[in-house]
């Protein structure tokens, strides 16, 4: 395995799982499990940060002219990073939103 592949896979495994956690946290909130949703979200954020660190390492390497190989796999890794980042923002909002809706329903009912 090349250095490029190893970096890409490390990013994908972290931010990919983060992405999955964010989606799951929205689903949990949808079904009223707010504390589980928030814990899941937190875990997702932690994984995302870890993946981000690997990406940062790679950026530092590139700026030091130690890395220049661009592959489709690395682009895919950055793609996963991007979508996880977007989902993090969305998931946070969705959990809050479902919580608000839920409390409104309870007070009205």
């Amino acid at each position: 395995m090349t250095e490029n592949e190893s970096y890409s896979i490390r990013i994908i495994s972290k931010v990919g799982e983060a992405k999955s956690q964010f989606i799951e946290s929205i689903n949990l909130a949808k079904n009223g499990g707010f504390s589980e949703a928030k814990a899941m979200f937190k875990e997702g954020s932690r994984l995302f940060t870890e993946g981000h660190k690997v990406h940062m390492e790679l950026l530092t390497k590139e700026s030091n002219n130690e890395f220049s190989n661009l592959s489709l796999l690395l682009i895919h890794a950055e793609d996963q990073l991007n979508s996880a980042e977007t989902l993090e923002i969305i998931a946070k909002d969705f959990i809050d939103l479902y919580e608000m809706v839920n409390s409104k329903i309870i007070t009205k009912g």
Partner: protein
Amino acid sequence: MIIMKKLYLFCSAGMSTSILAAAIQNVADSHNLDIEVKSFSEKDIDRIVKEYEPDCILLGPQVKYLSNSISKKFSSTRPVMVISSEDYGLINGEVILKKAILRMKNFEKEGRK
């Protein structure tokens, strides 16, 4: 008679998993195990499972959120397993293969009861 086991991996695009599939295949080949490892996108899972009937379904950590619905659909006929992000990130073909074989063995045992 030993029948070849099919170990199919699914992730969001089938891209990063293809490297992992190659790694697992390498380990299987080096131990002379009759196992076929392939990777696909989760979007094709219904068609692939119906057409090729894999003996074990492995999911990448990035599609972990689908494991419930996929287990519901297929876990009565074959084991469904999520690869941990640690094994995935290290491309730990040997560990993943061991876990998958164990799952298949347990599944067969339970099936015979």
